[in-house]
């Protein structure tokens, strides 16, 4: 402990303004903050300050996402072995997943954090711990087969264009992780969509037999023929309710398990980190729009219209997006009432995009980004309303 303290104390002067590494002071501060609490005392009233810091706030999100990460590793291994038609013990499965996923996570952190440091040095702002959250969320939304260089480009785009050019965390209006994900989706559709990308391939097995890859539930659902309901089609493809809820199906790395997303969301709500207003708004939006579309279902209509809305919450990345992406407080509206509206619109849009737009099997990513753009507008209306309720004091 003493050793670490001494190390930081001895390096401090180098990073002080005017020192040889003065430009990188924010980097020093961010790293020191991981090991040590602040030594600063307040200079003005109020004299005591809350123990909660942004560091702690962001760490809570990371803790809530970690189960999804570990599940994702296991599931990636599981799907790969299943596709190859081989069975193996839990540890080999998990280990294969670790080997597939960890490089993506590490590359994301390396590039994301590097951009944050560079911008902090050039733009002279502090390093916000938000980047750690962005960098854990981003790889979990990727297909496990994503080339490493694409992960690097994606997170770079997300952090730089989605956030830094607007002044860093707190001033961005788009969710940086999703911005990066959307960039990859549109720039490299071959690696980001289709049936093959969602299952990592065992190196040896691929030579012996062709790996059997399966379509994701969303593709199955969208491709339902008029001969049966979507539920039946999903069931035939092996996606019963239990599978969808637990997440053991080919999907992006960490986004498939509705169960773990639900746990994460509940934990974040209990900790007061995520806004329950957004999460409930999302869910209400999905369900309401789902039931609304049910009204139009019937003979000759698209089979997707009559899907039970709760399936929307179980399939694909909806749960992950709701729990961890919509709740990003910065890109969400900054008033409570607006957060209800924001959530509702995201939920409704997700369903609309999924059902009516066969080109985009997954709707939540675009729905969130779209509503990110509208968040300030909803905010503005709410603020106007609240101001009109005040007795003016000018």
């Amino acid at each position, binding site marked *: 402990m003493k050793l670490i303290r001494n190390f930081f104390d001895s390096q401090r002067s180098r990073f002080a303004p005017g020192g040889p590494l003065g430009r990188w002071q924010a980097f020093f501060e961010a790293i020191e*903050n991981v090991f040590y609490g*602040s030594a600063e005392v307040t200079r003005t009233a109020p004299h005591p300050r809350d123990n909660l810091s942004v560091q702690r706030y962001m760490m809570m999100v990371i803790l809530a996402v970690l189960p999804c990460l570990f599940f994702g590793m296991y599931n990636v291994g599981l799907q790969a072995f299943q596709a190859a038609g081989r069975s193996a013990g839990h540890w080999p499965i998990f280990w294969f997943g670790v080997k597939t996923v960890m490089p993506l996570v590490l590359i994301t952190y390396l590039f994301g954090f590097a951009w944050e440091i560079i911008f902090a040095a050039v733009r002279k702002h502090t390093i916000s711990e938000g980047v750690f959250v962005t960098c854990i969320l981003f790889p979990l939304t990727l297909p496990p087969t994503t080339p490493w260089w694409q992960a690097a480009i994606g997170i770079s785009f997300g952090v730089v264009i989605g956030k830094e050019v607007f002044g860093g965390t707190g001033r961005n209006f788009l969710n940086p992780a999703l911005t990066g994900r959307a960039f990859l989706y549109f720039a490299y559709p071959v690696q980001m969509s289709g049936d093959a990308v969602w299952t990592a391939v065992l190196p040896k097995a691929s030579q012996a037999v062709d790996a059997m890859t399966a379509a994701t539930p969303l593709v199955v659902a969208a491709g339902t023929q008029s001969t049966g309901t979507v539920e039946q089609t999903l069931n035939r493809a092996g996606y019963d309710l239990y599978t969808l809820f637990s997440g053991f199906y080919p999907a992006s790395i960490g986004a498939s398990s509705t169960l773990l997303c639900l746990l994460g969301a509940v934990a974040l709500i209990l900790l007061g980190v995520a806004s329950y207003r957004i999460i409930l708004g999302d869910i209400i939006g999905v369900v309401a729009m789902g039931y609304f579309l049910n009204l139009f279902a019937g003979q000759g209509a698209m089979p997707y219209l009559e899907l039970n809305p709760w399936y929307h919450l179980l399939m694909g990345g909806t749960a992950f997006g709701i729990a961890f992406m919509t709740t990003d407080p910065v890109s969400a509206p900054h008033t409570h009432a607006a957060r209800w509206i924001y959530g509702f619109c995201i939920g409704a849009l997700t369903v609309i995009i999924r059902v009516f737009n066969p080109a985009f099997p997954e709707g939540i990513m675009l729905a969130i980004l779209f509503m990110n753009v509208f968040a300030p507008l909803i905010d503005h209306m709410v603020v106007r309303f609240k101001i009109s309720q005040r007795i003016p004091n000018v």
Partner: protein
Amino acid sequence: MAGAPSTALTTLADPEQVAFLPDKMPYIKPRLKIAEGDAVKVGTLLFEDKRNPGIRFLSPAGGTVRRIQFGPRRVIQAIVIDRHAQKEDHESFLAITSNELGTMDRKELVDRILQGGLWWVFRQLPFRDLPDPETMPPAIILGLSAKEPYQPLPKVYLQDRMDLMAFGVKVLKKLAQDRVMAFSNGDSPPPDEILPLLTHMVQGNYPSDDPGTFLYHTKSSPEENRAWFVSGQDLLLLAQLLAQGAYPVDRVVTVAGSRAPNPQHFRTRLGIPLSHLVEAAAMGEDARLVVGGLFRGYASDRYGFMGHYETALNLVPEGSGSEFLSLFNPGLLKPTYSRTFLSRLNPGVLRYDCNRHGGERACIACMHCSDICPVDIMPHKAYKAILADEVEEYLEHGLLDCVECGLCSYVCPSKIELTRTFIDAKAAYAKEPAG
């Protein structure tokens, strides 16, 4: 919260020195009327306000002016007076009886208060400046509760002062033509005898004791925004002046906080040195001396004095060390408004210190500030409007309703100095030419 004062009330002997701190009086421009070495009595004019020479500030002790301490840009920080221990002379003023008060002209009452040097007990919302004696207040608010950690409890400072308080309320009624609102907090009620004087009972935590909070929740029209207010102890001073015809210097002060050797109430005087309350040896090396409550008070060194409005000295740990792996500490003992520490489940007494507990970051819209604001301002939005110099916008947000309680700065995880910014913006707006 650790360090709450007991209700014990100890009377202290008079100190050798007392001081008047003109720069703790809001907005005034003092013009000195004495010089170093002058002899003064209790109640001798020390300085007046250049903006309105009728507003006079009188000596809280009889003796010799020892030194006049100037700060940056010739701000008068302190007028220190050596007290004559044996013979402390008093200036005399006209006393009035309760009956005379009833028949007296309001104008004459105002003049008596101005002459008696106690106009400063009144302040006017929203800027908390001294009101113009020529004007008629829309209302006068008398707050009798003390929710800020830690201020003297009404039931302690009102002991044996019931008659004065009743007289004081009568004075207020005369001044405001019966538009007096007196309130107290239900959780720490004043003595029963005072209840008939009260018009409102409020509930809630700090700052429900603030006249600004009270006004925000009771007002029905913008006309009331410029109400005056007076604190319970200050009203006792005023009542004493008018009833007894002598400049009053009584004060009940709490010494509290987790570093205070013996947290309790003391009966003493205005403007005493801090070392009179807590011996220098007992202050401790790492204690911060906060004159006033923890959320609004000012930090002072151990040679400082109490300001005239202040009624508390809080000693809390500075907390300047950095804690190893504090980020990963479950935090059973770490006080927080959020739910990210186990302390939320800890019913025990928690200790606060003055560490900032985190680096300064950009706002992440966690909404804690707008959840906690007692007057429904959205501090994160108003703050951005202030930074953008959008005067109209931040006034619409209700900046002038801000009671300067400090809670938004307290809860902010990004450690943004919201309250400081609001106070400065209000002060800047107050100094703008009218219109």
